[in-house]
């Protein structure tokens, strides 16, 4: 009886790779609420988690798209930092909106550079983006010469700062609201999910990840599809950087360091197959939520932060293995 009802779930698991991560998220939330004595599940902390989810999430959406093509982009942490710095530098000197667009464009350009080099030379994306990860991290540190860029607090008002992650909305009573960056994330998720499932671009992206040779044989321009994914990924990382800078009002050269690993971990956790062709944007974002939740749990429970890295690694390995088991079970007739 129980076995019969379980196999009834197979089609759901087969078609919705995010089932695993949703299960993990629910169990974790229950665990956190039960063990933190209100230190995790209070409105201030939840609000913070959502803000972190927003900026890391935008980056993760882009990384998921690249993973969908069967490639990987580990340069996004540096792109995020460059985006933040460009935004802060030009926001006070010229205009915040212009600065934000410039930062996103710079991210797109870094993505285009990655994509072009990878498709043109046939070099593995891991190697190329490892290179650009270091190049743009180095540039960020060199340009700031160790200091932070910042926007004085008194100048951070008006609609533009509000829209670009500078404020929270939906404040209600003791709930401190949701950072406006979160709205960008939701918009990104909706638009990209529709694009992925219901447009030619999405069909081609997943086809390239499933089998680049087959996609090519059906007339799909594989290189162009990959470059587009890298451009989107860079632009989203740049936007994430803008919103993070908008929230904090300052950034230094180390902004976004190691975030690329969290983004990739969130994708794996969310049911994206690293070999390409199967991704879940919603799953990846729930993966981001899980990671930010764990991180904040460790903080409020006063666990030393270095344990987060250890835990992150363990989670990624466990998620990868568990997900394979789950899929294997679901595909079996």
């Amino acid at each position, binding site marked *: 009886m129980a076995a019969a009802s379980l196999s009834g779930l197979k089609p759901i698991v087969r078609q919705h790779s995010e089932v695993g991560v949703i299960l993990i998220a629910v169990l974790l939330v229950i665990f956190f609420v039960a063990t933190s004595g209100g230190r995790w599940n209070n409105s201030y902390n939840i609000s913070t988690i959502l803000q972190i989810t927003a900026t890391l999430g935008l980056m993760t959406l882009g990384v998921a798209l690249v993973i969908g093509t069967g490639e990987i982009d580990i340069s996004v942490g540096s792109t995020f930092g460059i985006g933040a710095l460009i935004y802060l530098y030009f926001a006070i000197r010229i205009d915040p909106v212009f600065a934000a667009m410039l930062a996103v464009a710079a991210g797109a350009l870094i993505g285009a550079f990655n994509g072009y080099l990878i498709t043109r030379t046939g070099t593995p994306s891991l190697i190329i983006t490892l290179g650009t990860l270091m190049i743009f991290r180095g540039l960020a540190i060199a340009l700031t010469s160790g200091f932070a860029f910042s926007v004085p607090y008194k100048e951070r008002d008006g609609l533009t700062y509000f829209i670009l992650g500078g404020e929270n909305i939906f404040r209600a009573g003791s709930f401190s609201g949701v950072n406006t960056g979160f709205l960008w994330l939701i918009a990104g998720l909706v638009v990209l999910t529709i694009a992925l499932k219901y447009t030619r671009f999405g069909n081609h992206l997943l086809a390239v990840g499933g089998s680049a040779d087959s996609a090519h044989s059906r007339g799909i321009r594989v290189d162009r599809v990959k470059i587009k994914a890298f451009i989107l990924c860079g632009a989203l990382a740049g936007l994430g950087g803008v919103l993070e800078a908008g929230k904090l009002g300052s950034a230094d050269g180390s902004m976004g360091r190691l975030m690329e690993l969290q983004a990739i971990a969130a994708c794996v956790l969310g049911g994206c197959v690293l070999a390409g*062709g199967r991704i879940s944007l919603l799953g990846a974002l729930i993966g981001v939520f899980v990671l930010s939740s764990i991180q904040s749990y460790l903080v409020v429970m006063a666990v030393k932060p270095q344990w987060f890295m250890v835990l992150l690694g363990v989670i990624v390995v466990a998620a990868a293995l568990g997900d394979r088991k789950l899929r294997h079970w679901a595909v079996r007739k």
Partner: protein
Amino acid sequence: MADAKPLIQVKNLDLYFGAFHALRNVSVDFHAGELVGLVGDNGAGKTTLIRVLCGIHTPTGGEVYFDGERVRAFHPKLAIDQGIETIQQSVGLCDNLSIARNFYLGREPVKRILGIPFLDFAKMRGEAKKVIRAFGLRDNVSVDDEVERLSGGERQSVKIGRAVEFKNRVVIMDEPTNHLSVREREHVNELAVQLRDQGLLVIYITHDIFQVHKLADRIVIMENGEKIEDASTDSMTADELEEVIRQGGRQVEKMEA
């Protein structure tokens, strides 16, 4: 029967993969309304030749003419746009996508909503369903199923159905009867003849000279990247052609030794 002017003309074609000389000075004409059997052993260059014709490989040297025009750029997209449909042997389907999505891969129909082109799923699913049923896919296979779950024969059926559905001027079949049962094999062979009778050029690749001799108007035999025979099936029997394959192989071995 066949037009005098070739639809596809291959002249002195050479193709290297690195140092490997995969096609050696191949010249061959293909006419509309003709069923040509392309025969040879493994590694003879049959698949490589047709992969040039369908745009996957760009030749290192030589010329290809389509309908009298010199082909200057090679890409599957260009070949498909010209009306060349190919049933590839090892590629052509993405395991992670549904049958309907694979069916229309690269030529997805769209419906504009607020000016944005969205995939026309009603058309994709409807057409794909009609065709795969005609090609004998089981009733419990849905067009929404991922290709990953299909058997070898079912996968082949999807590819053949797709090529026939979108047939235009040329249908190239690379070992189309692999993975198929005896009855399905006969069905595919009948289809090849039908397409020819409709005035299309059909290029049929196989190991089995006896099978293709019954269908084809002309047999082209390849060996070590070279064309070693090009004869109408009226002028030579299957046994004679098989002898050519044996002889050809031996000659090349001698030359290389």
